């Protein structure tokens, strides 16, 4: 809503970064920016973007909000969905419901730990990571089981309308819905309020703990949904399939302009952040580099991106 001059706006900068990465990719390997390639990249970004939605909410809610347990919750969601579907199209809906319901409840437990017991979110969700991961090991005995229904795989991997797979539409709906939620509903205003000043939020009558619990629940929900997408994307799952999403979801949120201190930011930035991150990783794979070179460039690029627009304000103004 605030009119900021174009270049200091995180959204503009993220968009510029995305275009620059596309250009670099195209130069390095012609065909990189071809339509079907971009759709492919967007699909990967959508999966990241959906977990990042939950991560975004938790971070906006402040009080050091962060959810490290999205990794195992994604794995859990994938395993549950895979086992319920077992390759049958008819079971897709129950699979989605079961996966997201379970992870939603796990998220609520995170929320209760953070609000009622006042455990710092970082360690609460880290502990939950161990518990869910351990639970998965106990449940599956380490042997992957279950597989995706063909219709789900088609929805995620095959063009549906206008050459775009269904998951992109789901992501678009989530983006619009979440932005509407944050900008146009009392709930969204409450999320920013508790992120900005919890005591003040309590004094204007907001049920601070209930909202915060719900945010963690939603993070669980989105992680479960991501699990379903992951198994739809790859066909089957293994018990650490979600691990790679933990830090990348946080990075997508942060390079999208949401402050880890809470109370400032939004989901559109996170969408761009997810796209930029996936693009960057893909550009790096097209570079014929040793593993170490890829890592160093990846880390450096993240730093440069943050230098461009992730800086905190000066104390001396």
């Amino acid at each position, binding site marked *: 809503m605030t009119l900021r001059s174009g270049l200091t706006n995180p959204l503009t900068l993220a968009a510029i970064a995305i275009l620059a990465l596309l250009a670099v990719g195209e130069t390095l390997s012609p065909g990189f920016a071809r339509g079907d390639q971009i759709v492919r990249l967007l699909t990967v970004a959508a999966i990241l973007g959906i977990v990042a939605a939950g991560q975004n909410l938790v971070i906006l809610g402040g009080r050091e909000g962060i959810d490290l347990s999205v990794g195992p919750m994604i794995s859990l969601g994938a395993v549950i969905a895979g086992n319920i579907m077992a390759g049958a199209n008819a079971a897709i809906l129950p699979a989605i419901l079961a996966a997201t319901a379970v992870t939603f409840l796990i998220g609520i437990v995170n929320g209760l*730990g953070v609000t009622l*017991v006042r455990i710092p979110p970082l*360690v609460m969700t880290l502990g939950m990571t161990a*518990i869910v991961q*351990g639970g998965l090991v106990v449940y599956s*005995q380490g042997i992957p089981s279950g597989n995706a229904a063909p219709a789900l795989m088609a929805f995620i991997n095959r063009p549906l309308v206008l050459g775009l797979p269904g998951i992109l539409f789901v992501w678009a709906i989530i983006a619009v819905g979440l932005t509407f939620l944050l900008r146009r509903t009392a709930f969204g205003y409450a999320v920013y309020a508790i992120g900005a000043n919890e005591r003040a939020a309590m004094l204007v009558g907001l049920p601070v703990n209930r909202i915060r619990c719900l945010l963690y629940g939603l993070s669980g929900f989105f992680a479960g949904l991501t699990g379903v997408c992951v198994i739809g994307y790859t066909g089957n799952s293994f018990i650490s399939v979600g691990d790679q999403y933990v830090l990348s979801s946080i990075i997508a949120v942060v390079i999208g302009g949401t402050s880890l201190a809470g109370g400032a930011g939004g989901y559109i930035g996170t969408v761009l952040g997810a796209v930029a991150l996936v693009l960057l990783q893909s550009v790096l794979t097209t570079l014929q580099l*040793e593993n170490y*070179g890829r890592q160093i460039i990846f880390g450096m690029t993240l730093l440069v991106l943050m230098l461009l627009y*992730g800086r905190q304000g000066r104390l001396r103004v």
Partner: protein
Amino acid sequence: MSAVVRSRPWLLTLIALAVLVAVNTALQPSFVQPAVLQSNLTTFLPLTLVAIGQTYVVMGGDIDLSVGAIAALVNVVTVSAIAAVGGDGLTPIIAGLAAGLATAVVCGVINGVLVAVLRLQAIVTTFATGIVFAGTALFVLPQAGLPVPEAFWRSYGATLIGLPVVLWILLAGLAFALFLGRRPFVAHLTAVGGSRVGAFQTGLSLSRVRIGAFVLSALFAGFAALCLTGETASGDPLLGQSLALSSISAVVLGGTALSGGSGGPVGSILGALVLGMIGNVIFFAGLPFAWQTLVQGLIVLAALAGGVLVTRR
């Protein structure tokens, strides 16, 4: 009671540690034998050292996710420097230690400058620098290998004046923490973590204090790397990957708030030992392997919850 605990939250960690030691001794009577104690301490020492350094960064309101990568980098730099200097005697070892610790300081300064001078958010910055450091470690030493001279690991496993070297190292870490705790630096660090604006308006030099904390954190990660080198007697570019998150758990278990402005390294030392002992107890409780992670998570959360509930007003 609760007032005493609130000003010294590590008392609870100490109680938890005592309980775990008792349980462990009951499950494994040989636990109290000096050799067993020494081998346990050898296992816990790296995390304990990293936790000490991490505490300073956390007290200042920041966080350091790159400690694991720094440990790996210091390890490979040390073994490579020893190999490069070559020959017998102490010269290569001293060169290796110096190169390793210098690397740590450089890493700490890089983190500190990015966060305190260029004003980036610590959590993502140190994640990113961690990737860079880890990549550099792979560049220095692509594969695990390069054994260190016998003198290195022998002296690490030796005893000095009747006590194992590992115990001396732990005591030195504790002594350093107590020493620094009485210097103005820690008061200033707490202030910077408690309120950035207030500390600035009071005239403190925020960047110097925050960079100092990151250097300490990196340096302790470097010490941990040297201990790991003494333990494994060779280089490994992938070492220490769990150190970052475990050290943060140890810091929190020790009663330091992640929001900054409170706590101290003594609690973190206890927190690291508690984490190690939880692993021990679970192992000796004869749980099936598949259950171990689950139970470990539950115990850690229970310990945290217990601590918070007791200190609550």
